[in-house]
């Protein structure tokens, strides 16, 4: 396992240089090309920046540390495609704020990772460029939508990678590949320069091997950005704190018989580990979570249909060569540029927002969201954090769910509640099933308790080599 600390200390001691670290990461990426976790490498820009670090012209908390961005973050060095035909040749005119912030601290982006096109999906099979294989079992999915970033971290190509999480797109692939993944409190890090999916739940986070590395990276990414008016003043200090005994609730509705036995066993073992460390863990009930997936698949498609209206074949992105009229520029460019799942979500959004259905679907879902938030608030009066599985089962087989969109949506069932409520949630690698497939557990806390969740995970983290 390669951590940020390993790389920083090797560079500091002179054992290696930033250029050597970047070259080594690029070599590891090439050696693992068969996983199809990366869409493009950016060696030229990466090595240029590594030289600046070695010359002392670029310094910072992450000086010389290679990383990977999910290819929906606008970043220089190669096109920003969102794994779609729509943006196949899109050269970003500027970089995402969080990418800029990481670069200011000397981190070096070596490439762009695969995702479900426009981050719509839970397996990375909806990529216009083909799926990514799971890091542990190549016959299985990487999870998604940030599948590529989870896999490059799990394969030790880089010590951290960026992802976006709208309903579980960081946490679920983190669970499927055995790494940490954080969906911070809504507004923790700027959304500016990231291809928008659903603006009311889009969050920017990362994958890493330890709670400490996760905190360090999020600490750099966090903070108010004048270009994203939902971004919060920086509350994230990026370090791990000693923990006092905490009171933790296991949400019983997430532990019923529909959840894989191995997942329940790992979650219960994690609860025991927390107890052994002096924390109290009790079963709690939050019945409204059973409705969260239905809320999610109303609210998110509604926002998707609005956000993806910008892809009209006019200002940037794909324009159909067959279009003869302006109306055809729109309808054919969108037909050719979007994947089936993108179209499906846009159509669902158009349905729930249309006259006659708006109150019954969209408005009702936003009211139900209030009930969900109230349910969480009530639990947080008594409990400091909540524990659930991250996903109901370990990684599924490639192709297993592609014919049934609703079944694919069900894989988000554990992660969407925190997204709808804006709460911080992390997936912690906590064990494996009998076949060795990774299983993650999810810790969810009150708004802005991100540091506490990572510190809690760190307090029971096994020392790793």
């Amino acid at each position, binding site marked *: 396992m390669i951590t940020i600390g390993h790389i920083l200390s090797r560079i500091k001691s002179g054992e290696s240089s930033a250029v050597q670290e970047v070259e080594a990461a690029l070599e590891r990426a090439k050696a693992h090309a068969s996983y199809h976790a990366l869409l493009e490498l950016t060696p030229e820009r990466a090595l240029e920046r590594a030289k600046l670090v070695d010359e002392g012209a670029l310094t910072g908390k992450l000086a010389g540390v290679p990383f990977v961005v999910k290819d929906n973050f606008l970043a220089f060095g190669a096109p920003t495609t969102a794994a779609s035909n729509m943006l196949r040749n*899109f050269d970003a*005119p500027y970089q995402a704020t969080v990418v800029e912030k990481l670069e200011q601290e000397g981190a070096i982006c070596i490439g762009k990772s695969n995702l479900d096109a426009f981050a719509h999906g839970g397996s990375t099979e909806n990529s216009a460029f083909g799926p990514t294989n799971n890091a542990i079992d190549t016959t299985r999915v990487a999870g998604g939508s940030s599948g590529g970033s989870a896999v490059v971290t799990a394969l030790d190509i880089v010590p951290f990678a960026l992802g976006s999480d709208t309903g579980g797109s960081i946490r679920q692939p983190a669970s499927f590949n055995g790494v940490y993944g954080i969906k911070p*409190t*809504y*507004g923790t890090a700027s959304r500016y320069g990231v291809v928008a999916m659903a603006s*009311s*739940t889009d969050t920017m986070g990362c994958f890493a091997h330890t709670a400490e590395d996760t905190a360090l990276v999020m600490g750099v990414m966090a903070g108010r950005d*004048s270009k994203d*008016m939902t971004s*919060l003043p920086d509350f994230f200090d990026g370090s791990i704190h000693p923990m006092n005994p905490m009171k933790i609730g296991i949400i019983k509705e997430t532990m019923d018989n529909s959840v894989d036995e191995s997942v329940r066993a790992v979650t219960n073992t994690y609860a025991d580990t927390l107890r052994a460390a002096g924390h109290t863990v009790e079963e709690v009930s939050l019945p409204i979570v059973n*409705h969260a997936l*239905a*809320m999610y*698949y*109303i609210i998110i498609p509604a926002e998707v249909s609005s956000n993806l*209206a910008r892809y*009209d*074949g*006019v*200002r*940037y*992105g*794909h324009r159909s060569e067959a279009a*003869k*009229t*302006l*109306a*055809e*520029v729109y*309808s*054919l460019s*969108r*037909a050719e540029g979007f994947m*089936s799942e993108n*179209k*499906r979500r846009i*159509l*669902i*959004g*158009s*349905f729930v927002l*249309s006259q006659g259905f708006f109150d*019954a*679907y969209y*408005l*009702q*879902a*936003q*009211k*139900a*969201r*209030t*009930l969900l*938030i109230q349910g969480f608030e009530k639990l947080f009066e008594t409990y400091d954090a909540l524990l659930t599985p991250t996903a109901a089962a370990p990684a599924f087989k490639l192709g297993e769910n592609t014919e049934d*969109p*609703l079944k694919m949506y069900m894989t988000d069932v554990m992660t969407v509640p925190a997204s*709808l*409520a*804006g709460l911080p949630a992390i997936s912690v690698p906590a064990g494996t099933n009998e076949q060795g497939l990774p299983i993650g557990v999810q810790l969810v806390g009150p*708004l802005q308790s991100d540091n506490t969740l990572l510190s809690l995970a760190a307090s029971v983290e096994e020392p790793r080599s």
Partner: protein
Amino acid sequence: MTHITASVVQQLAALSAISLDDNEVESMRQELGKIFEYIAQLQELDTSAVEPTYQVGWVGTAMRSDEVAESLGREKLLSLAPSAKDNQIKVPKVL
């Protein structure tokens, strides 16, 4: 299963400005029917006592001083357009 007809799918496609072929219309018809049936479960919930939440953690509309600042520039943005001429984006005729 919620019954969705092909014409409903076509209407949604028109609202969404996406052209669908006949096969896509048929598969969307079946899939959307199942999805709409699933999400209709929310109608069971009593939400009469609550207001909708459109945005979590809303910090209010941000204000900034009205000062001239650097922007990306016309040339750079026009270079992204599929077709441009005379400093403008070009599209087929509307009528």
